């Protein structure tokens, strides 16, 4: 099972984890990306995420399909939030379950890395120390 989704409301992890319930799986790994109050030594006030929905959906699904093909995992879900986000808000959630933890860890890492590298979603940063805001993307960094 795999599921990719773009939402404009708060991500609820509990209902997502429930979807992984599987008596054959011993390992579940999840990643959450939270909005930080700083980036490149600048104080961030909030973020805005936009996407190219049609392309983001097909790319996001492709990432999950590739994770399922590459690793011995059972299911993978990724939810990305769009719109205006405040400090501490969850921007992205990735969950993976598997019989064994090695595959679950590797696949979860693979999914978030590829989501960040390939899926057409963009983040605009707003700062506490200036009126300007900036679309992030010219520099490719890890979260």
């Amino acid at each position, binding site marked *: 099972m795999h599921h990719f989704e773009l939402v404009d409301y708060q991500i609820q992890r509990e209902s997502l984890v429930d979807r992984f319930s599987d008596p054959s799986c011993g390992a579940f790994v999840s990643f959450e990306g939270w909005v930080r109050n700083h980036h490149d030594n600048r104080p961030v006030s909030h973020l805005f995420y936009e*996407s190219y929905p049609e392309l983001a959906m097909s790319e996001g699904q492709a990432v999950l399909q590739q994770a399922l093909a590459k690793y011995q995992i059972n299911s993978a879900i990724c939810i990305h939030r769009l719109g205006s986000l405040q400090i501490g808000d969850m921007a992205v959630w990735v969950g993976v379950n598997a019989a064994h933890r090695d595959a679950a860890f590797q696949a979860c890492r693979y999914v978030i890395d590829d989501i960040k590298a390939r899926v057409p979603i963009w983040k605009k940063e707003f700062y506490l120390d200036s009126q300007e805001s900036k*679309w992030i993307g010219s520099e490719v960094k890890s979260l």
Partner: protein
Amino acid sequence: MDNSVLSKTVCLKYFSQFAERTGKTTEEWLTEAITVEALWIELDKQYGFELDISAVRPAVNHQFCDWKMAINHRDIISFIPPVSGG
């Protein structure tokens, strides 16, 4: 040969820094460009995107494509600047 035969109207979609640069999120565009690469060069002249082509990925009809992809009339075309989700 009638020049209008070579002209195509495409629907451009702009995101992120490109939407900011053009001041638009979509645009109808009349072009004689054969490939998406030629169209990028045309638009870059118009708007000055200040981003090397190597950092950009073209998409036609909601799918990533090759820069050599031929353009058809009514295609939905977008140039994808570096992404920053997550």
